């Protein structure tokens, strides 16, 4: 009797433990094959020879950088134990060097150990003048990369770098194996077809067949550093076709598990998603569709001083007017009409990465026509008999320009209607994108000249660090005839406090401190209504419902965490 219970109990415990620990110790490759479709086919697996998103994503399955950016834009250690900072001594006090220490015991897919020599080799490979490296900009300012010991690499810059994470952070600059690419330096780079098509990496998968501009077959890397990962044994990375076909294959026919970059009309995507086979996920980078208010007078009567700081705008300089313009806009409706799942309402011009997203400007989501009217009434703008407000002979009549694009023209029409409801007259103008963004000195219609009362377009920045982006709205960046209309400060925003924050950020290395400064700058712009954000635009991808673990990422390769993907039960 006792023995029987004992045996039963032990058996039960064994079964319990096997289920409890099973998840953690399940074998690599248990979930079979995963199908990924990129409608732009990958042409190489070496991101140093092709900067295309498709190639970087393909390579990210086999090659890894020292650190990745996660879905929020935060750095996560990949081949190192921790991200070097000034606090942990990894970044020198004078901000001129950064020292990375590789984790111990990491091996390449061929079983040989990863060493600092590989990192040094990769840097030299890209920085070779004759090789035509496409990621050279990431190595800007680097004077030397040296191996301190087998696992330690020191990167030295030509001056202080408050954000020294250009080289080897993110999938654009992964580590190549020195042994494999030794003969591929400089002019020999293009001759290394076998290496470029089948690089040996530390990533979760290795290439088994590479068909350029077509399909790539990969198999799980048996030497991958995390036990039990990846869950998939093989990857079929197919290329070709168009966004609609890719979307259909993942959302309607179920042939593929992951379809990249579905730039489709909102109703088309919604229709595909309604088949119930897959879901549309969106990742948000820093791309924001916004209105730029002209704080200076664009009147043609001013000749050469048109839209320069010499003449403040007759009514836009009144903050009540700017605030009323913002309050009258129904942002959720704009998102629904223009972008669907590929956009969301934002009240910040710097909505991401997450740590830079200001929590202080909520409330713009709700349209408030009555509030806007009340605000203008209080400010003394009286409704005229023609339905347009005026004060001291100045009528609220606006010229609103943007580039030619179906969604933007829809936005213009809607916004004009809302503004009419608060007594503001709007004249619409659209300019061909080539001219608007072209920067031609002789054209009066460029977005820098801004010969209008306000304009609408979208902009973003490269990488995760907003320092250069926020610097755009300092006094020095105002476009004018003196600087040949160069500069990114379209609203002609000029504020000494703002410029002080910009200067402070240029000397601050701590990431949290940098975030505080960026948020302060963003709030300054938002609360003065100099820039009116409309829609935070994202990238959409289709994911089959049976695929788990996908974390869409706007800051790194979308496939950055493919090692964590698995098949749902």
């Amino acid at each position, binding site marked *: 009797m006792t023995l029987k219970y004992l045996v039963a109990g032990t058996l039960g415990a064994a079964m319990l433990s096997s289920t409890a620990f099973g998840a953690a110790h399940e074998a690599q490759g248990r979930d079979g094959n995963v199908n990924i*479709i990129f409608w732009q*086919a990958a*042409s*190489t697996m*070496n991101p140093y*020879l*092709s*900067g*295309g*998103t498709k190639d970087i994503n393909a390579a990210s399955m086999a090659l890894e950088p020292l650190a990745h950016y996660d879905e929020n834009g935060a750095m996560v250690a990949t081949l190192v134990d921790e991200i070097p900072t000034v606090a942990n001594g990894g970044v020198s006090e004078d901000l001129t060097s950064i020292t990375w220490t590789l984790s111990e015991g990491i091996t390449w897919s061929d079983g040989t150990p990863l060493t600092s020599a590989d990192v040094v080799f990769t840097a030299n490979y890209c920085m070779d*003048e*004759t*090789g*035509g*490296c*496409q990621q*050279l*900009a990431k190595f800007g300012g680097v004077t030397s990369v040296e191996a301190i010991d087998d696992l330690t690499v020191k990167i030295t810059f030509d001056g202080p770098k408050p954000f020294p994470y250009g080289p080897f952070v993110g999938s654009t600059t992964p580590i190549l194996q020195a042994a494999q690419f030794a003969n591929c330096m400089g*002019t020999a*780079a*293009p*001759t*290394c*077809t076998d290496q*470029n*098509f089948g690089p040996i990496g530390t990533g979760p998968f290795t290439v088994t*067949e590479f*068909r*350029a*501009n*077509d*399909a790539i*077959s990969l198999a799980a890397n048996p030497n991958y550093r995390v036990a039990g990962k990846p869950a998939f044994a093989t990857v*079929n990375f*197919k*290329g*070709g*076709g*168009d966004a609609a*076909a890719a979307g*259909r*294959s993942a959302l*309607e*026919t*179920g*042939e*593929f598990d992951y379809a990249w970059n579905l730039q489709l009309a909102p109703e088309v995507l919604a229709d595909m998603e309604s*088949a119930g086979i897959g879901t549309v996920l969106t990742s948000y980078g820093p791309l924001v569709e916004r209105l730029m208010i002209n704080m200076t007078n664009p009147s043609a009567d001013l000749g050469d001083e048109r839209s320069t700081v010499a003449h403040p705008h007759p009514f836009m300089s009144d903050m009540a007017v700017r605030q009323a313009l913002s309050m009258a806009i129904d942002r959720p409706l704009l998102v629904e009409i223009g972008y669907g799942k590929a956009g969301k309402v934002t009240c910040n011009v710097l909505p991401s990465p997450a740590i830079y997203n200001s929590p202080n400007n909520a409330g713009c989501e709700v349209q408030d026509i009555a509030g806007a009217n009340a605000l203008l009434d209080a400010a003394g703008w009286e409704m005229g008999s023609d339905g347009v407000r005026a004060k001291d002979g100045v009528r609220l009549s606006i010229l609103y320009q943007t580039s030619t694009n179906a969604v933007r023209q829809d936005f213009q029409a809607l916004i004009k209607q809302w503004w009419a409801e608060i007594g503001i007259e709007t004249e619409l103008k659209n300019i061909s994108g080539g001219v608007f963004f072209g920067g031609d000195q002789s054209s009066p219609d460029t977005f820098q000249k801004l010969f209008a009362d306000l304009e609408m377009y979208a902009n973003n920045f*490269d*990488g995760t660090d907003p320092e250069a982006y926020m610097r755009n709205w300092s006094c020095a960046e105002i476009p004018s005839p003196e600087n040949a209309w160069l500069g990114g400060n379209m609203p002609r925003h000029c504020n000494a406090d703002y410029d002080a924050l910009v200067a402070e950020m240029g000397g601050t290395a701590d990431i949290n401190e940098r975030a505080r400064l960026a948020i302060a700058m963003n709030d300054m712009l938002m609360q003065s209504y100099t820039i009116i954000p409309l829609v935070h635009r994202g990238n959409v991808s289709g994911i089959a419902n049976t695929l788990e673990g996908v974390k869409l990422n706007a800051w790194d390769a979308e496939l950055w965490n493919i090692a964590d993907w698995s098949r749902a039960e």
Partner: protein
Amino acid sequence: MLNFTLRRLVFTVPTLLLISFIIFLILDLAPNDPTGNLPLTIPPEVRANIRASLGLDDPMYWRYILWCQQFFVNEPLNLLNQWFGWCVGDCENRLRVTSWATRSPVVDLIAERMPQTLWVVGMSYVVGILIALPIGVISAYKQYSWFDQAGTFVAMIGFSVPTFFTGVLLIVIFSVWMPNDSVFWLPSIYDTTHKVTDWGSFVFQMRQMVMPVMVLALYNAAQISRFMRASMLDNLSQDYVRTARAKGLKEKTVLLVHVLRNSMIPVVTVIALGIPQVFGGAIITEQIFKVNGLGQLLIIGIEGADIPLVQTLTFLFAVLIVMFNLVADVLYGLLDPRIRYD
């Protein structure tokens, strides 16, 4: 005939050289930049560096001579080396025509694409011909019958409705609407890495070929069936057909031996002239079904300003066109005893 063929072959050499130069010139004049598709975040000096590494700073004539040397000398030598193991000169470091986008030899890319293009586009051509010939024959024999009218209608549809419409229509019907477990369900995306090893994988290969092959076959059949019909009608009204009937031959013999054989002469040459298009791939259909054959390779090359790839592919197409023109002429001479070239 042999003299004629040899004479024509000799003439093709300067023709093709001229064509290669014209292609090179056009590509060089095209406002295309191989760094144009790179992300905007890559700065101009890096782009200049990339262009220099691709040899774009060299003068045009020099790049043309280089291409000629790579294509006409190095590539054939490399083939000799690969096929027979013969090594002439420096086998290891011979400079081959290299694609800018993939940094791999263009000829290898083309060889990699050849199987799926021949399987799908070639099969569609064969299927198209097999459909077209009987339709053309019956349509002509029963001129203005309901069969002829239906054939005319189908040919009109096949010819005028673009393949991107018929292709997507088939996908919607057989991949989207059809339940995935149905035997009639067909894959909408062609798996180029699929290998036929047994009966099951062969069936899968057939299934994934059905839609692209049928879309293209309909288009090809439309054209060829009209040729066949017209040619049959031409011959059916000839006196020798009446002679054949007067001989007391069976109607089948009259139709198949007398009329069909004579009608096939122009049709066979039309078919021969169409073969280069098979190698050229069917750009649109390949895109729709993701067959990724030679047509898609060319399109990607054009989009990415991959000049060595585009130059080599278009030149190979030119060679095929010139060759099959010759083949068509020779075939005509062989089939029609009235034509003699010497």
